[in-house]
């Protein structure tokens, strides 16, 4: 099956001449459906740039990005915008909810922008909120939601409809560790249901929820974890649980 996201030899240079900054250098990344990948690195390592290029919000200077087998560089502006609305869900560090809209309206917004009839979009929005255990908060406005609830609404908005690629930038933001864990469980579950996910973070506890962890340093992928062994390996090592 075609991978959901492919990045081939992607480089990104900001500025030019003496102020040239190489944010990414020859990065390769393939993410399949059903897979959650984490990219770890310190600030300035190129994590956010990688995510905005993967989400076609920014162009690569060199290399190729394919989403579900289609080259982003071959798409028109409109095609790209449509693909982003339909196929890609983003979760940002600071949630980015629209203050004047209810939880359901926030979640259904990308569908409505894409021309889906209001009733159908709202029903899909409510369904996404239900999946995340937020059905009873459907009519609340962002200001009335706790930080953890706001982030769950943001995750609902990223998975609503038939989105296939889930991109998250430090998705636990300023949440405490219990809420951070909830967010990661939701992202993991969404990927188990068939989405492909990429999370960038500097937080090893969040990254540990991923099937694979890649390490970015100075714009280069320097290493990655091998798929985790089963929990029984801990018992083999004599760890007393």
């Amino acid at each position: 099956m075609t991978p959901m996201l492919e990045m081939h030899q992607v480089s990104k240079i900001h500025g030019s001449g003496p102020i040239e900054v190489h944010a990414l250098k020859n990065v390769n990344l393939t993410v399949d459906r059903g897979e959650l990948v984490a990219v770890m690195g310190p600030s300035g390592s190129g994590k956010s740039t990688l995510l905005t290029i993967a989400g076609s919000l920014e162009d690569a200077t060199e290399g190729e990005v394919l989403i579900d087998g289609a080259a982003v560089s071959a798409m028109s502006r409109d095609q790209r915008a449509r693909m982003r609305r339909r196929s890609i869900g983003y979760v940002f560090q600071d949630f980015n909810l629209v203050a004047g809209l209810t939880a359901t309206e926030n979640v259904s917004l990308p569908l409505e922008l894409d021309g889906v009839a209001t009733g159908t979009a709202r029903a899909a929005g409510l369904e996404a909120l239900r999946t995340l255990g937020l059905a009873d908060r459907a009519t609340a406005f962002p200001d009335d939601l706790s930080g953890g609830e706001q982030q769950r609404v943001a995750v609902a908005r990223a998975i609503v409809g038939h989105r296939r690629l889930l991109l998250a930038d430090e998705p636990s933001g300023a949440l405490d560790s219990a809420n951070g864990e909830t967010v990661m469980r939701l992202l993991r579950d969404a990927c188990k249901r068939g989405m492909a996910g990429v999370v960038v973070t500097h937080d090893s506890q969040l990254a540990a929820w991923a099937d694979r962890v890649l390490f970015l340093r100075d714009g280069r992928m320097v290493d990655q974890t091998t798929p985790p062994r089963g929990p029984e390996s801990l018992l083999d090592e004599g760890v007393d649980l």
Partner: protein
Amino acid sequence: MSVRHALLALLSEEPKYGLRLQREFEERTGEVWPLNVGQVYTTLQRLERDGLVVSDGTGGAQKDFTITSAGRTELVDWLRTPPSSEIPPRDELVIKVLVAVKVPGVDVRDVIQAHRRHVVETMQTFTQLKAESRPDDVGLALVIDAELFRLEGIVRWLDAADSRLGQLAASPGSVEAPQPARQDAEVRQ
């Protein structure tokens, strides 16, 4: 921790004799690991028996020891090998990173990354166990959380070491390891 490998690391720089090895070992580890000279000689004898060092044949305390190529291979393998238990003791990692700074031909940041990867892999395994455990198994979740926070602490130390060494490498001058704090500057009353 491994005195054996620490001595190999010191010998990777140049041939040295026993007393000097003892003094340098204590200096390089910030004097937190005292080592008596008897231990140094016993270890050197074993290293020689195993073909990892050779001595120059002169007798007495000034006898110089030289690392062999087998010794070098053993040292570089050790630097990249995760500590024996699945849950690495922090102190042994600290030693490996301190040693790696000094060993010619070893990129300390690669050594740091090898250990970072290993710790994150262990965290993935624990997290998988947590994800698959019954929601009402609070005891298990608490134990796993304790382990994850401890391991996260190790990753954060490795990150900090990495960025400290990165800054050193970027600044003009040497990438020498920080010298142990001098003990002779007494606090004035």
